[in-house]
């Protein structure tokens, strides 16, 4: 509650007609110096992308010298050697090759802004999408009953009052498990929706909006009153710019996919300076049991969308790049061997990507033993050698300054692995 009040204190109550489309009261206050100047200083932003369905990390970033992998994936294995009839892998370091449809990532890796962690996953060996996502998002791989999500706890650990109702925003239709909890967090699937609406009746909507603002201002329930104020202040924040006609900068072109659309809106929120510090988006279609494809096909399309969406976002960030770190995650990896239908089944370790100027990039972190049967988990899967919490906590620590791992990941006491540059 204190965090909410922080916003109200700062917010003031501008009259609807005047402030609609104008400068929200508290920004004016900030400009006038009546509010502590630190309060609206641009904050660091962590953008998390959940790849639901379990990405085949071995196809995204392939240990292409591994003969075992080549043998058990006769139809899926790609080579880094040039000149074949299909596109070859992008050789990153002589051992690992990036899928050709992710070529957008290559410059970032070469410039050491992008890190890859291979063999990342959960210590809980469940191969159920639901359970594994649940555990990864709650951040407690052996406890189903954890009520909150790790990103919500992260918000609580930011160490300052929420200056805005938009501190944590998920670009999804409902709140993801990662966002469950007591700290303010919002799910918005479309920024243009964030207003009082009356289809085909703008005048009516405006009138209703004023009525609502007045009604919520007078109500005796402090919860409804405060949240009502927050809502109308948030509307005003979002109305500062025309969210519908957003023009990406630096010639960034977002794919017209769900992820591209989400990241575009995250970029808008960042540029609007609404005080967002944690953003969340989703990417789907990774459960590739059937005909996964190689340089073309479903997997290639997915990684193409993932990398192009992230790179459009990164380009669009331009001068904000120092403030932003992007991290992908997926619930588990897929079987080392291909299955009978040209795909892969549920496995264990996968890989993830971290992009940002303070990332310890240009290398594939983590440990991957040669893929021999005796080195595989349960004789079939890439072993999990890095606990996802080691990576998540390090990014949260180095980028957002969240040091309290006991709260962020209560049952975890491992070590960070150096995916971020030391501060």
């Amino acid at each position, binding site marked *: 509650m204190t965090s909410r009040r922080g916003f109200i204190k700062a917010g003031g109550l501008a009259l609807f007609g005047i402030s609609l489309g104008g400068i929200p009261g508290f920004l004016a206050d900030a400009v006038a110096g009546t509010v502590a100047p630190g309060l609206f200083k641009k904050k660091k932003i962590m953008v998390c992308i959940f790849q639901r369905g379990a990405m085949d990390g071995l196809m995204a970033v392939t240990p292409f010298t591994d003969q075992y992998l080549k043998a058990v994936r006769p139809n899926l294995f790609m080579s880094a050697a040039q000149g074949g009839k299909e596109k070859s892998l992008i050789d990153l370091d002589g051992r690992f090759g990036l899928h050709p449809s992710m070529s957008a990532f290559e410059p970032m890796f070469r410039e050491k802004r992008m890190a890859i962690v291979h063999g990342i996953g959960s210590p809980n060996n469940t191969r159920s999408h639901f359970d594994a996502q649940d555990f990864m998002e*709650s951040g407690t791989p052996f406890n*189903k*009953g954890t009520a909150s999500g790790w990103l919500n706890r992260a918000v609580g650990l930011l160490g300052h009052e929420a200056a805005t109702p938009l501190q944590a925003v998920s670009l999804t239709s409902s709140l993801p498990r990662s966002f469950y909890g007591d700290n303010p967090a919002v799910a918005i699937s479309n920024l243009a929706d964030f207003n009082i609406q*009356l289809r085909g009746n703008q005048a009516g909507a405006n009138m*209703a909006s004023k*009525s609502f603002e007045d009604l919520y201002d007078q109500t005796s329930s402090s919860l409804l009153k405060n949240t009502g104020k927050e809502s109308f202040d948030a509307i005003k924040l979002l109305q500062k710019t025309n969210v519908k006609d957003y023009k990406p900068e630096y010639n960034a072109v977002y794919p017209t996919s769900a992820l591209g659309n989400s990241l575009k809106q995250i970029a808008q929120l960042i540029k609007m300076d609404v005080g967002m510090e944690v953003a969340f988006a989703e990417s789907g279609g990774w459960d590739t049991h059937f005909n996964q494809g190689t340089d073309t096909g479903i997997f290639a399309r997915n990684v193409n969308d993932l990398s192009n969406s992230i790179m459009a976002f990164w380009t669009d960030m331009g001068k904000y790049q120092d403030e932003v770190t992007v991290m992908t995650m997926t619930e588990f990896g897929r079987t080392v061997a291909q299955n009978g239908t040209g795909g892969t089944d549920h496995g264990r370790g996968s890989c993830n990507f971290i992009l940002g100027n303070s990332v310890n990039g240009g290398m594939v972190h983590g440990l991957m033993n040669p893929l021999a049967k005796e080195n595989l988990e349960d004789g079939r899967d890439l072993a999990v050698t890095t606990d996802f919490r080691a990576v998540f906590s390090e990014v949260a620590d180095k980028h957002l300054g969240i040091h309290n791992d006991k709260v962020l990941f209560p049952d975890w006491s491992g070590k960070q692995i150096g995916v971020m540059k030391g501060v």
Partner: protein
Amino acid sequence: MKKNIHNFYICCIAFVCALVLSSFVRTSQQKEQIFLPYKKAGLTEQQAAAHLLSRFTYGAKEGDIELVTKMGLEKWLKQQLEGNLEDTALNRMLDKFDAINLTNTEVENVFPRNAQVVRFAVRDGYIHKDSVNKANGKEYRATLANYMKEKGIKPQQELYRQFINQKILRATYTNNQLKELMTDFWFNHFNVALSKNQCASYIPAYERDVIRPNVFGDFENLLLSTAKSPAMLMYLDNFSSTGTNIPVNEYGEDMMMTGQQKRKGKFAAQVAKAKIPQIKNKKSGLNENYAREVMELHTLGVDGGYTQSDVTQAARILTGWTIAPMGDNGYGAPMKKIMESAGDDKLKKRGFVHDGDFLFVMNRHDNGEKTVLGQKFPAGGGYEEGVALLEMLAHHTSTAKFISKKIATRFVSDNPPQSLIDKMAKTFLSSNGNIKSVLITMVSAPEFWSPNALREKTKSPFEFAISAVRSLDAKITQPYQLYTWINKMGQQMYYYQAPTGFPDRGQYWINTGSLLNRMNFGLALASQRIPGVTFNLAAMNNNHEPESAEAALLIYSKKIMPERKLDETIARLKPMLNDPNLEGNVAKAASQTAPPQQQNTMANEDANIMEQSADKAKLKGKKALLNSTPNQKAGTNTMLAQVVGVIIGSPEFQRK
């Protein structure tokens, strides 16, 4: 002749039994004489009725307060606690839904998972395995659709749609409102989620057969039925939990066996060799998920005084509790034949328990000794020790407190007074955990009627939407449209991922995004822009058109929010309504066509449905434009809708 006399005697005996039984029922009812101490709290009968209705129904319908006061509050409550009023109109609506009455086995056969459908289609040679996910999507989809039609297979989404629709219709229209509220409460307490694919198809039967029939009964029945239900066994993974089963004679008990038992033992060994109930066991081992949550969330509460060791030991007790094979293609299908050939009798002799969809698999059960909460469970307890464990948990003092607090939180306030919880917990313990008795204790307590409790609860998005629809006496032909809105407002019904269920406190429901959507819902509903939800605002006022906007506000706010203090709401809204430009604005607004921005507002969300509705809304808009010049009447109707929309979106209507 003799036979007739015999029958006559049987009838007599039955009659006498019935008499005796009914007298018992009567005395037990007399025991439950209800007295509601609202007068002491300073409430009028009308105010008390309004409070009762707002807590024990999904919102008062017009005339409900008069109805309840006329009948007597106590009598009304008793009826609700019986929960067996006729529901003819509702049942007629539900008749349309052919999937919601299917057994789990039937569901498995008719609604296999999408991936399964593809597998079957490949197996049956309808589609070639290489064509899956290949370029010609259209042809592929047509083949698959044709295959499904031929085999009588339906898409799972249809099952969930019907399931969601039935909940919305029941909540809106059932006469047994409290029973429906309690169904919601207990479902949420023993939460399972459609988002977990593996258990999703069992959930309609779970609510219907496991939750709803037990909502007013003894808590232990609920606990045991949920523990044995496929939905819960799958959701919290107990179905896979396996322990080491040491054959009985290795315990050195051989000496004590009779000859017959020895023979049985020999038979058992043969059965085991023949792999009769060796359920395929990919990941053998103990799974503690259910054992932990049954203590933390279902019974004792997180501070209920159990340790990690209790969790592990309880998990060992519950090893072998799993789901019986069902369906020809569904869960455990390969097992089904083997089990059938073994026969239930033989399985029973081996200590197996086959009860509907539940199966206790003796050879996956850890039959060593365990201790939970200081209670010893001797070796070889089999299925019965699990039942004993659950009964012990159900009657524990921590459980009495935990459940009482949760019920009080649901029905009284987000922070119910300890004195009330104590009273309820006392009843819980003295009544064998009888939920009806606990509820009666709650409403008989002054705390229930205290001014601190009135309007203190915030409606959940589901309650909010249903109460709005009920207050307008709306006709719902497309319940799923409401589901989409309820989801937008922050409550994706049946999809709450964590076993905790939705939190029950206003702060969870009210946040920036959700509050805005509540206001928008009010406006959309009142202006009849939610497809498939219709009502007649004028009829609510005997087709009498309010003289002015102000009159509309006075009349309709009293109808929608009876027995509430509305002076402040009305005072705040008056200036807006008295704006001399109002008529003109409204008329202008009514003649406007939809601005282009509105078209993409629903992008990404339930694309199909919303597109349809957008199209329909556009059509409606055009029709309205054709039919009416912005005359006085059209203007007033739009204005009336707007007033009603603001009332529904107002802070006062968010409370209950």
